[in-house]
């Protein structure tokens, strides 16, 4: 595998994917669900599904403002309608339920959810904080865990690169969500935020395993040179310099190759488990599984084809700038 050799290509692909994802999110936007905006959702299943326009007509008689009525997945072979409205007070809910139940035969209210606007906006701000906090903690941990590695690049660089990879891994599923929102009407709910946070935790794991190998190989192939120099004023101090017996790029390349099978296999087993959730887990967690699958796929790409090439690219750029040979 010539991952490091063609690093510019892989980096370009990664950057392109990130830019495209941002563009998709900006163009289509995310469709916030009632978890965040506040609103009500009522699902009613029927023995025989009544005509949509009749139900809509009788709902219009109530003063609900805008509402949307859609046929939803069938519970135990029964067909159901999903009604979305602004958040309803208790008397309004009773009125709506009466209309919905009267609309068809053998009606059953499968679920009702109503979220006040305050609780929704609170959740939205909490979600932003949580994503930010996870990202922050991860950078700090990595900078700390790689503290021993000062040369050829400092430990904070590993942290920074991990964060860029994380951005990549979160942007891809977010873009997918934006597309699903635009074309399929999928809404961003608490589950989506949870999926994103799980992606953060998962994909950083993937990147770390490769960086761990880099850390190990640096120690293996690095030579330390110590010499005592006299600083002006007669104070003597030890100056430590390092050198490699092969280019840094090769060392990173070797590390990637050594951990490649593991990265692929772990992504595969996680992917298989998520595939099971997607196929058999039912409607509730379908989008959740899909978002996570996208995150895992993006994570696999970024840890193999993005994080390590970026590391080499940065080291080489630094070298060119300082004109000191590694």
């Amino acid at each position, binding site marked *: 595998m010539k991952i490091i050799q063609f690093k510019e290509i892989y980096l370009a692909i990664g950057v392109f994917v990130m830019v495209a994802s941002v563009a998709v999110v900006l163009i289509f936007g995310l469709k916030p669900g009632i978890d965040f905006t506040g609103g009500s959702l009522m699902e009613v299943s029927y023995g025989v599904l009544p005509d949509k326009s009749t139900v809509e007509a009788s709902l219009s008689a109530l003063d609900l403002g805008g509402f949307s009525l859609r046929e939803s997945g069938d519970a135990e072979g029964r067909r159901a309608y999903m009604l979305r409205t602004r958040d309803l007070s208790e008397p309004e809910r009773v009125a709506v339920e009466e209309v919905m139940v009267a609309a068809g035969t053998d009606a059953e209210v499968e679920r009702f959810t109503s979220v006040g606007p305050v609780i929704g906006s609170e959740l939205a701000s909490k979600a932003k904080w949580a994503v930010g906090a996870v990202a922050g903690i*991860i950078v700090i941990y990595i900078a700390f865990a790689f503290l021993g590695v000062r040369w050829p690049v400092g430990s904070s660089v590993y942290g920074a690169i991990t964060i860029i990879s994380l951005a990549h891994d979160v942007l891809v599923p977010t873009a997918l969500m934006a597309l699903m929102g635009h074309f399929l009407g999928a809404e961003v709910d608490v589950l989506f935020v*949870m999926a994103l*946070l799980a992606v953060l935790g998962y994909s950083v794991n993937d990147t770390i395993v490769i960086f*761990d190998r880099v850390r190990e190989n640096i120690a293996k192939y690095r030579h330390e040179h110590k010499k005592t120099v006299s600083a002006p004023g007669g104070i003597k101090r030890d100056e430590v310099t390092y050198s490699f017996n092969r280019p840094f790029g090769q060392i990173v390349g070797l590390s990637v190759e050594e951990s490649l099978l593991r990265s692929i296999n772990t992504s595969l087993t996680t992917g298989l*488990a998520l595939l099971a959730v997607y196929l058999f887990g*039912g409607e509730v967690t379908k989008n*959740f599984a899909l978002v996570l699958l996208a995150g895992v796929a993006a994570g696999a790409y970024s840890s193999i084809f993005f994080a390590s090439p970026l590391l080499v690219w940065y080291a080489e750029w630094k070298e060119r700038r300082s004109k000191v040979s590694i």
Partner: protein
Amino acid sequence: MEKQTEVGSAVRIFYALVTLVVSAVVAFFVYQNVSTPDAKYPFKLGLDLSGGSHLVYEADVTGVDTAEIPELMDVLRLVIERRVNIFGVSEPIVQVESSSVVSGERKERLVVELPGITDVGEAVAEIGRTPLLEFKLVDEQALAAEQVLAGLSSDGGDGVKVTAVGGGEAYTDTGLTGRYLQNAQLQFVGQGGGGLSNEAVVAITWNEEGAALFEKITGENVGKPLAIFLDGELISSPNINERISGGQAVISGGFTPDEARDLAQNLSFGALPLPISLESTQTIGATLGGEILDNGVKAGVAGFILVVAFMVLWYRLPGLVAVAALGTYVVVMLALFQLIPVVLTAAGLAGFILTIGMAVDANVLVFERMKEELREGKTMREAARIGFQRAWSAIRDGNVTSLLSAIVLFWFGTSMVKGFALVFGIGVLVSMLSALLVTRTLLLALPDRGKSDGLLGKLYDSGFGK
């Protein structure tokens, strides 16, 4: 030398057997709790799986001293809890939830969960209704008769139906209710001269009307008990010692200070201490919940089979060992769900299945390392030992970051998110444990051979046989 190795392998095989037996015992424990109807540690299902109502009330705390809020919320919780208990729901949950610092304005909320109740209208009406504090006279004869009847009918397995004939109601209304109460507070009174043996009592102050009524009732019923009901539930039945005038009364009944304080609170706050408003509602029908649960279990089994198939096909014998570790992981997780207990939700189940996929990661890391060592000509056992050593730093760093995100998720938490975070966090810890203990013990117990040795060597090969 030769002999030592043999003793060593006997011990290793013994450890491996112990590990397998422990896993089997845990599995049996889980199975028992699922199959026995009245098991001590059944799975706790969230409302989205069992069906029920989830109500969130916001308490209006404007104009209330910040320092008093926690206490008032606690009283509010107690009052609502008592009202909820009227439903006879098996395990209702009523809890206070204060909004976190990050969301700016401080909000106090009360979360009410009613498993099995899907008629949200009835629930809302019951919770929102004005409570009733009543004082009733007790007919001790009728009360005794009632108790006997209750005893008879409860063991009347012979088909004999016992019906009360004649006899009055045990409790008769006095017309005195919480409407007339001005306040109630906890007091300590000395008994005789002994300053040490202070007794906790509840002092009541009536308003004018109540004072008159109370004087009349107590005057007519000296020596009899007066029962105090809150929301139809008997909370105390003190004796009337004398006619009480002046609108003051003391309820003594051998209370502990805590009991007396609770009673005083219950009496003063017969009405809700803070006005509440319904902010969010969630109701899931039992059929829908059951279906979601079925799907979750189906997905779990499918996910497990897929991961197992992959591991065995790819890593062969070590893969089989990883499968044993994964099996241990699953049963230990299920046992923890029962023991802690973790409330299982749809999201929690999905999170659990996700961790099944991630749990083999530590094994994969170790196996890949082992293969490298084998390629360098080491024996199986040496390779296993070095593999574990080398893979440790990666396993540690990877899992710590996953754990950190789980902690943040938990903190982020509404109840649904918390469930997921808990499953995710425990999963990370248990998967590390299963890889480091189970996989390691089993791998080291396998016969030690060089890579090229016949059949066994083939079994160690990975799918690529690199």
